[in-house]
């Protein structure tokens, strides 16, 4: 917002002023920013937990925190990052902002439900925040029984309720997206003309709607058992603690695809835009998103390979886990092929895109290693697993999230951010990330279990490297916070299409007006078409009024 005389009310940011115009908005773009605010706060808290973890682990002895405190710290790190940052993350911020615009609609199908989702999400977050401020939970984010039902003395129920409530917000967002994508597409916008970002969010929404209720009921049963000693998971009553694991992972495995699919959608957009050509194998990438969503529901017991399931069941889940890797591989190859004969510009979003593809590949392939039964027995519950999931969730999802923020920031804020500092921060993130997490693969194979507060001294060198990397990564994450905020006040005004990309979001001003487009666009060709113009605005084209 410039410091000059009050600007004309032309866009969604200045359409109305005042706190209540934000808190009672139905505009998907404003709701996206509400989410951006809250999830950034939760990310910062989760990052604080991570800082404590890496500080503690820089020395072999448990000398910074009490063991009990450390257990609460790593649990809250997981809960905050997974439920309050990674799962809502890209869909709630970028998905909310962009999906209606990308399909030529005025808003989502259910704008009031969208606002309600934010309130529900924030309420759930407040439960978890209350728990954090009152000592947190020490069960691990996985809440395994009977520790969580009968042994932990922490606020398991409050945290569980928080997870339950945020889960409901996730379901409603998914529901909203599904209906929107089915019913609100502009004339001429057939399924195979949709941007792959929309396909990715469609697949994600299916997982959100089908999977999240299962963790909801699981957490509910956990809370009831803890309150009333029901015995459903307690062996003393004939209950089965491993049943909890099955129920928990039935959601929590598909949940990781909720986290990564949207980032893959961002990657598709970035590669198309910064190579200025359509994604190679568009249909394959689109169907791969759906395949990941479906297959993702069939692999949960690969988290239980050493929990006593039968060797035959383990075999089945190992094979299925190999299958789910195939569509991800298809995407990686197609993105790579997109670069061939492209016109590639090395701007910040592309740097994140390139980082994403490399780091996600490593993360995914180490996932294949974990799915290999003979290997998993040795590395299950070690730092190898920790390294794997950070590669896909941080190297994958967070790179995708940051890449998307950098790509669409001019559209969202109407301002440009400084190119030099943004490229530098991308490089710092990449270096810091690899230094933090690559040593953890080695630590895992050497036998360092996860969730350990102290460890044998021969593992210190690798741990110190990891902690050093974390400090660099933290710098890389703080930088965008600084220059994005800076840009809102001092950044150059952004044109409608600062990257010269193709997409409906680039056909509207930066920032867009509240109704997104002055008239409903008509789509006459495929997405990412750099050879001809596929978006028609009948009135505007007739009058040739420049909206830019």
């Amino acid at each position, binding site marked *: 917002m410039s410091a000059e005389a009050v600007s004309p009310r032309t866009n969604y940011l200045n359409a109305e002023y005042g706190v209540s115009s934000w808190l009672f908005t139905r505009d998907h773009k404003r709701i996206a920013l509400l989410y951006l605010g809250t999830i950034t706060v939760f990310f910062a808290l989760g990052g604080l937990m991570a800082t404590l973890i890496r500080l503690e682990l820089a020395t072999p002895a448990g000398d910074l925190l009490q063991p009990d405190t450390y257990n609460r710290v790593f649990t809250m790190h997981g809960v905050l990052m997974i439920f309050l940052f990674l799962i809502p993350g890209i869909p709630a911020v970028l998905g909310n902002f962009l999906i209606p615009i990308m399909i030529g609609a005025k808003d989502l199908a259910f704008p009031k439900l969208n606002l309600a989702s934010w309130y529900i999400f924030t309420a759930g977050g407040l439960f978890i925040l209350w728990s954090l401020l009152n000592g947190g939970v020490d069960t691990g984010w996985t809440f395994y029984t009977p520790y969580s039902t009968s042994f932990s003395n922490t606020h398991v129920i409050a945290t569980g309720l928080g997870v339950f409530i945020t889960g409901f917000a996730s379901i409603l967002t998914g529901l909203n997206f599904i209906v929107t994508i089915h019913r609100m597409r502009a004339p001429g916008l057939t399924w195979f003309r949709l941007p792959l970002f929309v396909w990715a969010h469609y697949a994600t929404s299916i997982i959100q709607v089908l999977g999240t209720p299962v963790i909801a009921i699981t957490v509910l049963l956990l809370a009831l058992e803890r309150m009333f000693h029901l015995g459903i998971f307690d062996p003393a009553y004939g209950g089965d603690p491993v049943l909890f694991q099955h129920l928990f992972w039935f959601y929590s495995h598909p949940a990781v695809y909720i986290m990564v699919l949207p980032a893959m959608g961002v990657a598709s957009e970035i590669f198309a835009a910064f190579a200025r050509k359509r994604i190679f194998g568009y249909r394959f990438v689109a169907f791969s998103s759906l395949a990941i969503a479906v297959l993702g529901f069939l692999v949960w017991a690969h988290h239980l390979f050493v929990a006593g399931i039968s*060797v035959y069941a383990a075999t089945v889940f*190992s094979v299925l886990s190999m299958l789910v890797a195939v569509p991800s591989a298809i995407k990686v190859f197609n993105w*790579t092929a997109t670069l061939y004969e492209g*016109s590639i510009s090395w701007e910040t979003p592309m740097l994140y895109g390139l980082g994403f593809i490399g780091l996600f590949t490593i993360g995914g392939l180490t996932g294949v290693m974990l799915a290999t039964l003979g290997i998993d027995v040795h590395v299950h519950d070690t730092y190898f697993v920790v390294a794997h999931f950070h590669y896909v969730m941080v190297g994958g999802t967070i790179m995708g999230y940051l890449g998307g923020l950098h790509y669409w920031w001019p559209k969202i804020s109407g301002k440009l951010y400084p190119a030099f500092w943004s490229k530098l921060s991308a490089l710092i993130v990449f270096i810091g990330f690899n230094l933090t997490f690559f040593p953890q693969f080695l630590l895992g*194979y050497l036998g360092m279990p996860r969730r350990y507060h102290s460890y044998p001294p021969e593992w210190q060198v690798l741990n110190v490297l990891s902690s050093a990397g974390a400090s660099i990564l933290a710098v890389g994450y703080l930088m965008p916070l600084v220059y994005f905020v800076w840009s809102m006040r001092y950044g150059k005004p952004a044109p409608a299409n600062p990257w010269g990309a193709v997409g409906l979001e680039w056909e509207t001003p930066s920032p867009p007006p509240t109704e997104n487009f002055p008239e409903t666009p008509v789509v006459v060709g495929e997405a990412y078409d*750099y050879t001809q113009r596929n978006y028609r605005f009948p009135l505007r084209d007739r009058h040739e009024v420049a909206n830019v």
Partner: protein
Amino acid sequence: MLKNFPLLPPSASTLSGDVDAVYLFGVAVAAFFSVLIFCAVLFLAVRFRRRSPDEHGTPERALIWLEIAWSVIPLVIMLGMFGWGAKVFFDLHRPPSNATEYFVVGKQWMWKFQHPTGNREINELHVPMGAPVRLTMTSEDVIHSFYVPAFRSKSDVIPGRYSSLWFQATRTGTFPLFCAEYCGAEHSRMIGHVVVMEPRDYEAWLVRGASAQTVVASGADLFGALSCNTCHRTDSAARAPQLAGVYGREVTLADGAKVKADDNYLRESILNPAAKVVAGYQPVMPTFKGQISEEQLLQLLNYIKSMAAAPTPQQAILGGTEAR
């Protein structure tokens, strides 16, 4: 330099080499494809760098054969990894029949071991080199996990049931043991060692620390003390099934179902006898839940398992064994 900076833990069991082999293959595959993608992406991003502000890329047709190729080839490689890993997994779960059984009880935050000879240890397990060892494990409280990186084997230790893990040590030494399932405050200190000794040294060690009784003898004592023998007896006053030779046999229940009399079945029959009643018997056995500890249960179980099948008169005549 690699000696000071090892990438693999010591290799101390018959299967650690197999696990390392499939792991290194996985590393090679992961490294190959990661490097391939990294290099391809960097090369293409440089080679096709934008030369003028308005330049755009040249789209190509989709190439179905290429899509199929780069779907099928990774799938084949991954199925190969699956197959190899599954074989190693099966080996990790198939102890040789001559494995000696040791008993492990995990509890917050210590490991309790009992040798078949009755020797007990806490947090340290002495075993002979070159002999297969099978651990039968349970927990007294929450889920733990028994993990010895040098043997590349791990198994969760779960309250309310038995799990098992086997290994055969190939060299002497002291190898770290970790709890690998988060179990509360002192999870990181629920650690110990497996001490592998030369067989002769192991025998000497056993004698030095001998307990008054073997596990089986303790179990026999319990069998009498808890009056199991009043019903489980071999004469005509028996109101309960014969236990000699029952371990590993298939048992027919009152509702017609057949179950294998394994560790968990025997344990359940003591703690919750009404759950699975044997066909032809009245459901009169009382429960012993709350009356015996996990260690006593293990001793009883081992006594029962040691009761060799004496041929019944019918078997002696017919020359066969029933229900096998």
